[in-house]
């Protein structure tokens, strides 16, 4: 049920002829946008289209180079704090939590209740709990240090932070990119409820189904220009994709049958932090999927296999040889690991694109330990073109790329290393619909070249669509295995959930 478009109501937020430049590049051109109470506006566009930039302008985190932003009839205050006080709250694309603080202090960041400056512990705990409950984290102790939580949990905590602020306008920049299915449902329910309460919501996502489920209106951005703005009912997937990419999307998941060889990688009863037991193998030329619910331990398993965390037991062999205990050794034997948290584990944010692309693997850019002059830039120019990374210069810090383009850098570095085995955690997080298939193509090409590829994703359908075989994880164990011909979504999800339930019983 969607309320009718309340065009008659005065807008809460208005962008008038807004433009924004970073150095040489104008990334937003003459954007006009109005947000009305009780409406969810979906903002879509390919990576680097300018979505996050619009959002930073609305938050007061950056100032437009032209035009103005109006909040509730008045010009937007120049400071983020004042904007928040005026009732506009933002969830940024990248996590903005503070790892050393507790969950509670993060949820109530800059927003603690106090009496004459003294924290009101009871009230704050209650507020944090209620915020956490709304996003389905009610079971967590608010005093836990937030660094102990998984990426998904931290993303939810970020949402809880906005909910406790009693905002009138809520802006969510790809809130679902690292969330598993059930959590996305919870999130969409919360957004629906907030709309009923009369809030104006902006929702950014690369998942079209979410946009069609929750949004009243869809606004499309292409190369910094508004190219479409209409009620959701007037859009369909095809027209939306066409507006975003200015072309049709051929086919979403480019899976092809392939010659699959003998096992190249075997793990026998592996245990480690967050892994209670995994026996598995990967074959040459195979794409292997790991399916599980949030916290099932997929990330932890991949980390254990790669030697990122110390394995406490079991045996891992690659190409017939014992795999080294450190990531460095594993890397040397031809294994790459792609982390899910690109900002913290994948990139040196202040370093340039070129530097990030050759990080730790100088084969093509150095001879005898000496970097070849210009080789880094040349290599980067080739790779960024191959992966269609939208950038101004290969010398610019990778921090200045849009989220989806940063993700492409992380993937590109791994794939270009031509590994024997690639462990890829959530490869398309934050990547637009157009580029997703590009990344899938790269992974497929890697497998076709004889490598074994393991993928996980917060989007189970992606894993099912791309894999030749899957393992189901539950309760930090591998509980089942399916070949592609036996993929049964309902059954698999049932096992993933059931596994966890069984595990809970035997504890």
């Amino acid at each position, binding site marked *: 049920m969607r309320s009718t478009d309340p065009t008659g109501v005065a807008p809460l937020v208005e962008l008038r002829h807004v433009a924004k430049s970073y150095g040489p590049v104008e990334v937003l051109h003459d954007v006009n946008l109005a947000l009305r109470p009780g409406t969810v506006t979906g903002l879509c566009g390919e990576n680097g289209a300018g979505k996050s930039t619009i959002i930073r302008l609305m*938050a007061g*985190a950056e100032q437009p180079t032209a035009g103005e932003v109006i909040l509730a009839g008045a010009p937007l205050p120049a*400071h*983020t*704090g*004042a*904007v*928040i*006080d005026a009732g506009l709250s*933002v969830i*940024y694309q990248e996590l*903005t*939590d*503070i*790892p*050393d*603080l507790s969950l509670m*202090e993060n949820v109530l*960041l*800059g*927003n*603690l209740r*106090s009496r004459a*400056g*003294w*924290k009101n512990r009871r009230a704050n705990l209650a507020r944090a709990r209620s915020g956490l409950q709304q996003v389905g984290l009610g*079971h*967590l*102790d*608010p*005093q*836990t240090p937030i660094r102990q939580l998984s990426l998904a949990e931290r993303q939810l905590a970020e949402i809880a*932070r906005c909910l406790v602020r009693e905002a009138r306008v809520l802006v969510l920049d790809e809130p679902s990119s690292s969330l598993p299915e059930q959590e996305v449902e919870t999130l969409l329910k919360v957004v629906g409820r907030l709309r009923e309460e009369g809030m104006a919501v902006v929702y950014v996502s690369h998942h079209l189904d979410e946009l069609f489920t929750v949004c009243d209106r869809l606004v499309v951005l292409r190369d910094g220009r508004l190219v479409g703005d209409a009620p959701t009912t007037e859009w369909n997937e095809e027209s939306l994709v066409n507006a975003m990419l200015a072309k049709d999307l051929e086919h979403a998941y480019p899976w092809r049958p392939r010659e699959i060889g003998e096992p190249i990688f075997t793990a026998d009863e592996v245990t480690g*932090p*967050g892994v*209670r037991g995994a026996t598995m193998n990967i074959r040459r030329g195979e794409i292997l999927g790991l399916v599980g619910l949030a*916290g099932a331990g997929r990330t932890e398993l991949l980390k254990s296999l790669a030697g990122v965390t110390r394995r406490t037991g079991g045996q891992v062999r690659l190409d017939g040889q014992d795999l080294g205990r450190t990531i460095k050794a594993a890397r040397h034997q031809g294994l790459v690991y792609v982390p899910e948290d690109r900002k913290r584990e994948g990139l040196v944010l202040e370093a340039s694109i070129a530097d990030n692309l050759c990080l730790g693997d100088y084969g093509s850019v150095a001879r005898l330990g000496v970097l070849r002059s210009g080789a880094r830039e040349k290599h980067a120019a080739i790779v960024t073109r191959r992966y269609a990374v939208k950038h101004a210069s290969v010398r610019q810090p990778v921090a200045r790329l849009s989220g989806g383009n940063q993700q492409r850098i992380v993937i590109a570095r791994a794939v270009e290393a031509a590994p024997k085995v690639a462990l890829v955690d959530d490869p398309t997080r934050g990547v637009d619909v157009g580029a997703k298939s590009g990344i899938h193509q790269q992974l497929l090409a890697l497998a076709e070249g004889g490598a074994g590829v393991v993928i996980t994703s917060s989007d189970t359908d992606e894993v099912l669509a791309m894999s030749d075989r899957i393992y189901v994880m539950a*309760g*930090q164990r591998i509980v089942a295995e399916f070949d592609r011909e036996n993929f049964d979504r309902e059954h698999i999800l049932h096992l993933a959930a059931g596994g*966890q339930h069984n*595990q*809970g019983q035997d*504890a």
Partner: protein
Amino acid sequence: MTYTHASEVEAPTALPSRFLRRALGSPLLPITLALVLVCGVMTALSASFLTATNLTNIVVQSAVVGIAAVGATFVIVTGGIDLSVGSNIALSGLLGAMVAQDHGGLAGIVTTLVVALIVGLFNGVSITWLKLTPFIVTLAAMGIARGLTLQQSQGQTVYDLPAVFIWLGSAKVGGINVVLILTVVMFVSGHLILKRTTFGHRVYAAGGNAEASRLAGINVDRTVLACYVIAGLCAGLAALVLVGRLGSAAPNAATGTELQVIAAVVIGGTSLFGGKGSVVGTFIGVLLIGVINNGLTLLNVSPFWVQTVQGTLIFLAVLLDSFNNRRMQKQLTAKRSVGA
């Protein structure tokens, strides 16, 4: 969820055990144990160590570094540093002493505190408004303040000071040194401000991730500025203690104190990268340094060996700290996985 959550365990009846568990789980436990260990060794080796007078002496002797370190904890939690603290102590103490001679002790005390505050303000403003690096700003302030001290004193020690001015550093109230009381008050209030107020929350947030804090609406600049002002004020109080205790203000006073102050804070577990740390930790760090210095004199360690032994003891203490912390972490991890 497969983890044991504290919220389930923390029944209100389990209060004392909860306190115990928290103390045992504290990251400060190992360094505290190291302190206790050092004290134990000193007690065994020297009969003079574990006496009321000597323990009071240790605190009184550590008071200047300690009080300054309370302020430095704030600064370091923001991810900053204050190299000017020693010079600030010298300058504010000297100017206060000069004013005290001419206009009385009270005017002197006010002068000392105002001067110290101005130095803190200079640091804070340069760092937040002018966006200069804390290290260089406070290094420059260190040179400027020491230079002004020399220039104002013309290299001469100022002595013969009014009783009011030296009261803080030399008086006793009911048999207890005022310095002792002041030190305790400073540490307790520093701890409460950092842990129990929203200002303290902002300090940790600003140090943990300035950008995220700014996006969450925290006025990071104002928070950081306040921390440098607090550090300045603490240096002023430390100056009053030092001048009071020595009965004179020397132009070379507190040379090198900045390093001792930062060392105490860092040994106490505060990270130079900001966002982490506590005044309680600083207290333990200050005591550890104080006990080692005091103990080595009591044991009549040859002055030629003192620095080597000091360095080694500090190294061993933090080594113990790190081993214990890692063991504890492992145990905790193991327990979680099993207990689930």
